């Protein structure tokens, strides 16, 4: 307790304490009744109490400073402490336990449609560059979708294409596989599966090549080096391409 950075008020209290100790008679232990009463009032009173207000409640003949010091000492190191703030005294939870009073609740939210479409293209066409995604989708990518997918951790930059400008290639993550209950990328349904599921009409199926994505680096792809995957870096990189 003593080693902590204390507010000046605590310092003053310490001086008072020392004075009490020196004067002998006044440093006497406060009565247990007074301590109990002060404790109950500070706990249930509903507002911080000044030493003066407490003294009025406890009646004459009570050394309120001694009572407060005794209480403060009793609670030192406990999960609750007695503190003085703004001239009034109150109990509060120990600062190191603040986390107990914070709760985060995850609210399920559906992935936006644009992000879902981008994710689908990345899943099937990985490794795929930003420009390739735009080409496949026929629209320019809004920066939001890629950022969201990176933030959720369903996609990741996985390498660079060995072409002029060495653009980043993107792929899906293990978290992506976990979310969709896929043991591996090979488990992504192929053209025949999609047709059987009724998702792809036969005419479109005939005209389309559905790629079989893999986790291995493509022949024209350089895997990212360690240190190359600083998220800030990618954020910046994405910005350059953003509208």
């Amino acid at each position, binding site marked *: 307790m003593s080693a902590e950075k204390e507010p000046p008020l605590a310092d003053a209290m310490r001086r008072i304490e020392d004075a009490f100790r020196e004067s002998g008679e006044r440093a006497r232990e406060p009565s247990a009744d007074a301590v109990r009463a002060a404790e*109950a009032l500070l*706990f*249930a*009173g*509903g*507002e*911080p109490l000044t030493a003066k207000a407490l003294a009025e409640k406890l009646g004459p003949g009570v050394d309120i400073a001694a009572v407060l010091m005794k209480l403060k000492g009793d609670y030192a190191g406990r999960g609750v402490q007695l503190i003085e703030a703004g001239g009034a005294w*109150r*109990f*509060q*939870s120990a600062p190191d336990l603040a986390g107990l*009073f*914070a*709760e*985060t*609740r*995850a*609210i*399920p*939210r*559906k*992935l936006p*449609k644009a992000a*879902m*479409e981008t*994710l*689908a*293209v990345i*899943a*099937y066409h990985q490794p795929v560059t930003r420009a390739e995604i735009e080409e*496949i*989708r*026929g629209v320019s990518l809004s920066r939001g979708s890629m950022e*969201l997918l990176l933030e*959720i951790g369903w996609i990741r930059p996985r390498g660079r294409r060995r072409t002029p400008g060495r653009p980043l290639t993107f792929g899906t993550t293990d978290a992506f596989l976990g*979310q*969709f*209950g*896929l043991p591996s990328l090979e488990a992504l*349904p192929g053209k025949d599966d*999609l047709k059987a*599921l009724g*998702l*792809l*009409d036969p*005419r*479109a199926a005939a*005209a*389309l090549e*559905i790629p079989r994505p893999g986790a291995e680096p493509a022949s024209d792809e350089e895997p990212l080096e360690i240190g190359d995957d600083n998220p800030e870096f990618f954020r910046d990189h994405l910005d350059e391409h953003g509208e």
Partner: protein
Amino acid sequence: MTESDHDTIDVDLAAAEEAEGRDALLLALDAFEGPLALLLDLARAKKIDIAKLSVAEIADQYLAFIADAHAQNMELASDYLVMAAWLALLKSRLLLPKPHLPEDEPDQQQLADALKLKLMRLELARAAAKRLDAMPQLNRDVFLNGMPRPTVLTKTAAWTAELYHLLGAYCAERAKSVRRRAYRTFARRAFPLESARRKLEQALVNLRDWQTINAVAPASEAGPDAPPVESYLASTFGAALELAREGKMDLRQAEAFAPLFVRARPASEPAP
């Protein structure tokens, strides 16, 4: 019955019974819910041990109370009168030699005992009520933290998506690309406005006299990708309007659909 009635009775009853006897009981009429409670209070007031309760004695007191109430023109609830009648009957039977009763009718003594037991149970309920009321009650005797620290709730988004939707999105995207390929729209080509303006500016030097705009418009190029003929005239007309606005050219047309003439604006003449 109002709140203050209860309070009055709660506080006053015991003392009033001791001091005033019947008056207290009369006062109590409002508060008592019924004759059994009245019987119990009569027994208490006379310090009668309910375990040894004499039904005859309690009946006398009860009947005296009823008579007194009548004398004071007090309205008595029917419950009170039924109890009075019942007690009178019971007392008279207890005083008479044991009559021969049908098998299914309970014995007088049994009825008296049952009454005693009822009174004791009521006594018990009242004792329990007092005991309960004496227990430390929340917000009367004990209090919770007056300044509780609330839990701060932070909401985060847990993004969800299903495989079926992912596949659906993919197929829809790809099907769109097929359609794009199948129904390619052609870009309509036109003679660029900038080119028309450049050509017209070059021609301006020799345009001292009026000429039809058709004569000024450049000849169309040949080839499959060449813009259609009418676009040369349209772009030249647009460029001519621009130059006219800038004060470099005059346009003239006699009437609607008549040939349109253009010339460079003479340097001395102001705009028409």
